[in-house]
């Protein structure tokens, strides 16, 4: 089962800092999560980067990126500083 780590606000909404999922792809996993929150709250999440094992899904197979048992999927927002 893949591990999903939501961004901070989403984690608060879900009441959990991580979730397990048996979804086969990133797209399927996000569908599962989206079903747990109201649409207006989900909208903010669309700007988050989706990372699988640290890699942006843009450089993998996008929403079709397959997920394996130990994969970690993170949702994070742009940041900077130093």
């Amino acid at each position, binding site marked *: 089962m893949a591990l999903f*780590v939501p*961004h*901070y*606000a989403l*984690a608060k909404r879900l009441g959990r*800092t*991580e979730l397990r999922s048996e979804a086969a792809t990133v797209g399927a996993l996000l569908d599962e999560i989206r079903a747990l929150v109201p649409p207006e709250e989900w909208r903010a999440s*669309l*700007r*988050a*980067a*989706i*990372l699988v*094992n*640290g*890699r*942006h*899904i*843009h*450089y993998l197979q*996008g*929403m079709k990126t397959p997920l394996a048992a130990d994969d970690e999927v*993170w*949702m*994070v*927002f*742009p*940041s*900077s*500083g*130093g």
Partner: protein
Amino acid sequence: MKSLTATYLEVDLTSGGSSARPVPSEVVELYLGGRGLGARLLFDSTPPGLDPFDERMPIIFSVGPLTGSAAPQSNRFVVTTKSPATGAIADSHCGGSFATKLKKAGFDGVIVRGRSPRPVYLEIKDGKAELKDAAHLWGKGTVATQAALPASFGKAVIGPAGENRVPFACIVSQNRIAGRTGTGAVMGSKNLKAIIADGSAATFERDEAFKELQKEVTEFLRSHPMTGQILPTLGTANLVMTCAGRNIIPTRNFQKGHDRRTPELAGERMRDELLIRKDGCLSCPVKCGRHIRLGKGEGKGPEFETIGLLGNNLGIFDMQTVAELGELCDDLGMDTISMGGVLGFATELTERGLLNSELAWGRVEAYHEAIEATARRSGLGAELAEGTRALAKRRGGEEFAIQVKGLELPAYDPRGCFGQGLEYATNNRGGCHVRGSTMFLEATGPVSIDPHSTAGKPELVVFQQDMNAAVSSLVFCYFASYAVLPAFAFKLEASSAAYRLAMAAASRATGPALWLAMRMKNPAQLLWFEKFLSAAWGRRVGLGEFMRAGARIYNLERLYNLREGMSGSADTLPRRLLDEPTFPGAKAGVPLADMLRRYYRVRGWDSEGVPTPATLRRLAIRS
């Protein structure tokens, strides 16, 4: 045209004498101020091979051409000398009020040489300098030292670590820190506890056009997602979740790229659970500093680097504990990045049986004691105080000693941002992230120029380093440059066609576009930096001239390092970061060699990393 000269105060601690030293306008025009002028003065005023602790070694404090103007993020100063940590050029930047106060005292900088026979502090007031007895301050922390000095003055002070010449000792001004490269140790070697400044000189003549520009840029920074929202609301700790998700936050001495508990250190949690108020430098609309609740009351909220190196890296996941360790380092006068790096390395040495110590991941008491001992060079601290590189020489483990040119690495593991790895390897002051912050464009920002590709990275790193050299010679805070990316980039939905298009374009076009841009004499003013400089100088400065100044400064620093015996072979990364993968499917770490060859070519250096005569001519560098 306005005057382009800069006036430094020169002080000889051995003789006690002082005098004003004007810097000619042709030098100012080439090197701008701050970092650039500091580098030129250091290069010209020291013989090759001078030891950082030789009494002839100058320590140079410089402000910029906009200091005192109240231009946003311009009230900072730079300290330049030779680093006892690296043997390379040292320059360290700091906020607080000291820069403006020094300018009000009548100077654009201070050059301190010699060694006082007893502890002193330097008071600069309305054009006059006086050395005062500091026996009562010696041994005191930076907080008590500042409290004991006259309140109205701007201050730059050291703690016990500087007095004890710890090579990563810092200089503190209010609660802002000139952290990196050990400038505090050079100050300590001179028996100079503090410099304080105040005065009533006019600092900057602001006409209506300037005020308009100031207003416009302030409003822009306030409205930009990065400088108007993310940094102000979360501080630099906004980076924690992103770096964890990106698998690039140091974990157990860079053995891994994140920990399951990393989210406990999120900036969002600090905001929701601990924040009392925002804090920051004079005339900065961003205010990225934090003031938070601590167990003992309240204090400084940790910066991302402190969280990364003294927290996550050491297996400490309690924000208040990390804050307290950070405050301890600040008070003792030590860089939290290097201290965290040394402790991480020493812990792994201990784990492998190469060092006998109490250090273990997450063992807060042991780390607390080790920090105290390092500043005082007592017990285990005597070894830790020599830094990671020296510790590896003595105890072994060079392949996992996480330092470049002797400077411990900050909190971005370059195995997840190859350009940042190239930047670490080539930075003139060693393993540092704020000489270009390439990771922002690869991994942490809204666009992500493929972090695991080498394409275009040499061009990107050169561009970023040159831009940074110019910006930090003004002396603007480099965080402003995060607003260079247009606001719409932050609004793109990460799975949208527009985002995919932007990413593809950025990944393919960055290298060639920057290559071209760096060769053009672009007269346009695209950023606010050139506009402010134009206002200060009273003549138009275009982006091309500004970037060429950055390249000149960067190359001069390189020449200094070469002169001091640091060759191209120092442009490398620790073996762990080159060889050990942290990403599933990867066979190694950062593919540095290919990027480095191209980087030298883009810079106009030969295959040994030496600037060619043609490059020096093109940039009008006198060596």
